[in-house]
C-alpha cells in the first residue's frame, strides 16, 4: 500500500466489497461432502489440519463382491490348557470362516518363574527357616498368581509375612541365577544380583509409610514445625560459619560475633532468651559477612574509584533482595529527593548513602511484615507457630535485634517438640490455646 502511495497509483478500492461477496459462496464450497453442515460446525467450522477420520470412509459401502454371513461356530482358545470348545458368532466372508487363533489369546501373559530341580535345591537353596515343601508351595503360588505377593501371602498355608515370602523368593532366584551362570561377569548386570532384596529395610520402609499415612493432622503440623525449626537452626549455623570464615580484621564485629557464637552450642536445649541471640546473629553476621567480603575484595585492588566501591557495597547489601525490592528502594530514594548515584561521592557521602539504602530495605521489610500481620489478624484470631520459615532474606534485614529475637523466642516457648524445651510453664499455655499453623508468621 505504501508502495502504491509512492508510485502515485490510485488505491484499489474495489477488492473490499468484492471480498465480502465472494466469501459466502466460498464458505459453502468449503464444507466437505459426507458430513452434514451442522456436524461440521461442531469442529468450529474449520477443517482440521489433519483430518482425524477420512470422512469419505464413514459412508462407504462395503465392497459389493463380498458376501457376508454370520455363523454360530465353535472355537478353541490356545490360552486354555484343556480342550474346551465353545461357540460364538463368526463373520463369514464368501463362505470362508476366518482363520487364526482366538483373538484374545494373546493377552494371556504370565511371569516366568524360575524352576529349580531337587538337586539344585539340595545344593544351593537350603535354608534353615524354610522347608522344601514350603519353598515349593511358594513357587507354585508365585506361578499361579504371577508374583502377586499379597495374594500369595494370603493363600500361603503357614502364616508368613509378605516380606518373608519376598525375601525367600528373591534369594532363591538369586542363588539359582548365580549357580546357573557360567561366569559371574555375565550376570553382574542382573538386578537380582546387583540389588538384592533387603528384608529389614523393606519392613522399616513400610512401617514408616504406614506411619506417615496414619498421622493425624495434629501430628503432621507438629512434624512440620520441628522441621522448620531445625532448618532455621542449620541456616543460622551456616550464617555464623560464613561470618567466621570471612577472615577480615573488622574489629568492631569480631567481638560480638565470637561472643554470640559461643552461645550457639547451648542453643539446642536452652531457654528462650538464648535462642534470641542466634536470630540476631543471623541478621548481623549475614550483613557483616556480605559487607566484609566486599571490603576484602576492594582492598585486594591496588586502586579503585569511589563510585565503583559504592556500587559493590550496594550490590552486597541488596544481594538477598529480589529485583522488585531493589526497584522499590530506588523508587523510595527518588521520592525522598536523593540521587540514585550521589553527585559528590566522597567517603562520607557514600557511607551515608549506603546506610540510607539499608534503612530503606529495613523499612520495606517492616511494611511487608505489617501487611502479613494485618492479614493474619483479620482471618485468624489465634496466631501460631510458623511452619514454613520465612526466607532468610526477611530475617537478614531485621537489624533491630530485640524485635527479631522476640518473635523467635515466642515460637520456641510454645513448642513441645521432642528433645527440646519441655518446661512445665509452657505446656499449660499450649493446651489452653490450640494454635493453628500460619504459613506467613514472621
Amino acid at each position, binding site marked *: 500500500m505504501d508502495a502504491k502511495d509512492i508510485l502515485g497509483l490510485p488505491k484499489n478500492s474495489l477488492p473490499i466489497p468484492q471480498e465480502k461477496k465472494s466469501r459466502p459462496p466460498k464458505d459453502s464450497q468449503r464444507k466437505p461432502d459426507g458430513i452434514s453442515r451442522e456436524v461440521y460446525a461442531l469442529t468450529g467450522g474449520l477443517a482440521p489440519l489433519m483430518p482425524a477420520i477420512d470422512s469419505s470412509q464413514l459412508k462407504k459401502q462395503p465392497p459389493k463382491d463380498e458376501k457376508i454371513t454370520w455363523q454360530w461356530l465353535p472355537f478353541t482358545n490356545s490360552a486354555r490348557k484343556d480342550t474346551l470348545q465353545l461357540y460364538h458368532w463368526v463373520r463369514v466372508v464368501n463362505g470362508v470362516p476366518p482363520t487364526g487363533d482366538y483373538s484374545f489369546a494373546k493377552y494371556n501373559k504370565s511371569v516366568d518363574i524360575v524352576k529349580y530341580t531337587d538337586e539344585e535345591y539340595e545344593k544351593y537353596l537350603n535354608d534353615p527357616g524354610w522347608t522344601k515343601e514350603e519353598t515349593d508351595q511358594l513357587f507354585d503360588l508365585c506361578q499361579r498368581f504371577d508374583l502377586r505377593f499379597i495374594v500369595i501371602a494370603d493363600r500361603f498355608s503357614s502364616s508368613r509375612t509378605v516380606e518373608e515370602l519376598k525375601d525367600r523368593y528373591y534369594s532363591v532366584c538369586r542363588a539359582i541365577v548365580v549357580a546357573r551362570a557360567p561366569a559371574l561377569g555375565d550376570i553382574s548386570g542382573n538386578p537380582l544380583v546387583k540389588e538384592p532384596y533387603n528384608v529389614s529395610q523393606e519392613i522399616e520402609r513400610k512401617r514408616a509409610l504406614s506411619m506417615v499415612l496414619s498421622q493425624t493432622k495434629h501430628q503432621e503440623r507438629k512434624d512440620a514445625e520441628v522441621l522448620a525449626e531445625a532448618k532455621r537452626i542449620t541456616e543460622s549455623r551456616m550464617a555464623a560459619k560464613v561470618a567466621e570464615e570471612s577472615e577480615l580484621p573488622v574489629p568492631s564485629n569480631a567481638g560480638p560475633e565470637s561472643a554470640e557464637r559461643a552461645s550457639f552450642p547451648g542453643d539446642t536445649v536452652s531457654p*528462650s532468651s538464648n535462642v534470641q541471640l542466634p536470630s540476631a546473629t543471623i541478621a548481623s553476621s549475614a550483613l557483616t559477612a556480605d559487607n566484609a567480603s566486599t571490603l576484602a575484595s*576492594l*582492598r585486594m*585492588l*591496588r*586502586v*579503585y*574509584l*569511589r*563510585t565503583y*566501591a559504592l556500587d559493590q557495597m550496594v550490590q552486597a547489601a541488596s544481594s538477598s533482595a529480589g529485583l522488585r525490592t531493589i526497584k522499590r528502594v530506588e523508587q*523510595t*530514594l527518588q521520592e*525522598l*529527593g*536523593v*540521587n540514585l548515584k*550521589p*553527585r*559528590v*561521592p*566522597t*567517603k*562520607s*557521602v557514600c557511607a*551515608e*548513602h549506603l*546506610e*540510607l539504602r539499608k*534503612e*530503606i530495605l*529495613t*523499612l520495606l521489610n*517492616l*511494611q511487608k*511484615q*505489617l501487611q502479613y*500481620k*494485618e492479614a493474619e*489478624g483479620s482471618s485468624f484470631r489465634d*496466631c501460631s507457630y510458623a511452619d514454613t520459615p520465612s526466607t532468610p532474606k526477611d530475617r537478614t534485614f531485621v537489624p*533491630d535485634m530485640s*524485635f527479631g529475637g*522476640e518473635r523467635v*523466642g*515466642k515460637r520456641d*516457648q*510454645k513448642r513441645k517438640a521432642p528433645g527440646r524445651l519441655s518446661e512445665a*510453664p*509452657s505446656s*499449660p*499455655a*499450649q493446651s489452653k*490455646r490450640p494454635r493453628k499453623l500460619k504459613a506467613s508468621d514472621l
Partner: protein
Amino acid sequence: MNNSSSSKKHSPDQPETSGPTFKSQRTKMDTEKKILNKKLKDVEISCPIVYGSMAFWLGKKASEYQSHKWTVYVRGAMNEDLGVVVKRVVFQLHSSFNSPTRVLESPPFEVSEAGWGEFEIAITLYFHSDVCDKPVNLYHHLKLYPEDESGPMSTKKPVVMETYDEIVFPEPSEGFLARVQNHPAVTLPRLPIGFTLPPPVPVEDASRRKRGDTKDHPLSQWFMNFSEADELLQLAAARQQVQAHIAKLKRQISVIDGPHQQLKSISDQ
C-alpha cells in the same frame, strides 16, 4: 611487605647529591627505599578528581564538520595539581580524529579539539610507580548540545558536563604517603596512633616545577562546584524520614503482637 617491582629510584623529588657524600648517601637511600616501599594497611589515600568536558558553539564560524570547539580534561576537585599522583593521562578520542590516542605526560591533563559529534571518550589514568602500577579507566560522554534543546546556543556560554569521583588507594606505600602527606590534591585519613612517617621530602624548586594546578585555568570560571555538604544534608534528611517511618511501623507491629506478648509473659513464669 616489600614491593619488589619498583626498585628504581622512586621519586624525582629526591634532592640531588654530589661528591664525597655520595657513597654514604647511596646506602642511606637503599634503606630508605626499602622503608618507603613498604605498604601501609589501614591508611587509605583518596584523591578527589573531576573529569569532564566543556564545549563552545562556534556560531558564525561553525562549519559542517566543526560546529563546536571542546575540551576534555581531568582536574583535581579543588583545582589542585594532580601531577603528584598521576603520571600520565591517555584520552582515547573517536577514531575519526587524527591520532585519536592523545597522551598527556604532565598537567594540565586536557585535550582540546573541534568537531561536530558527541561520542564516548575513554580516559585512562596512569599513576607514578610508587603510587600504583595499575591504571584506572574512566568514561565520559562528550556533550555538545545543551539539555534544553529549544534554547538558543551561545558562543559565550559552554555546555559543561563534569563528573566527580575519588580515586582510592587502600594500601599506599610509605613513599607515596611521605610524598603527598601535605599536598592539597589528596585526602589522608587520620593516621593511626604510633605511626611515624619518614620526614617529608623537601619540595622541589618552585621555579623548576611547572604549574600543574588549574586554579587559574582560563576555563575555571565554568568549572562546576562539587560540595559534599549539600549531598550530606540531603542524605541526613532522608535518613531521618526513613528512621521515623521505621519507628512508626515498629510501633504498629508491636500493637498487633500485643495480645500474643501477654500470653507469652504468662507462660514465661
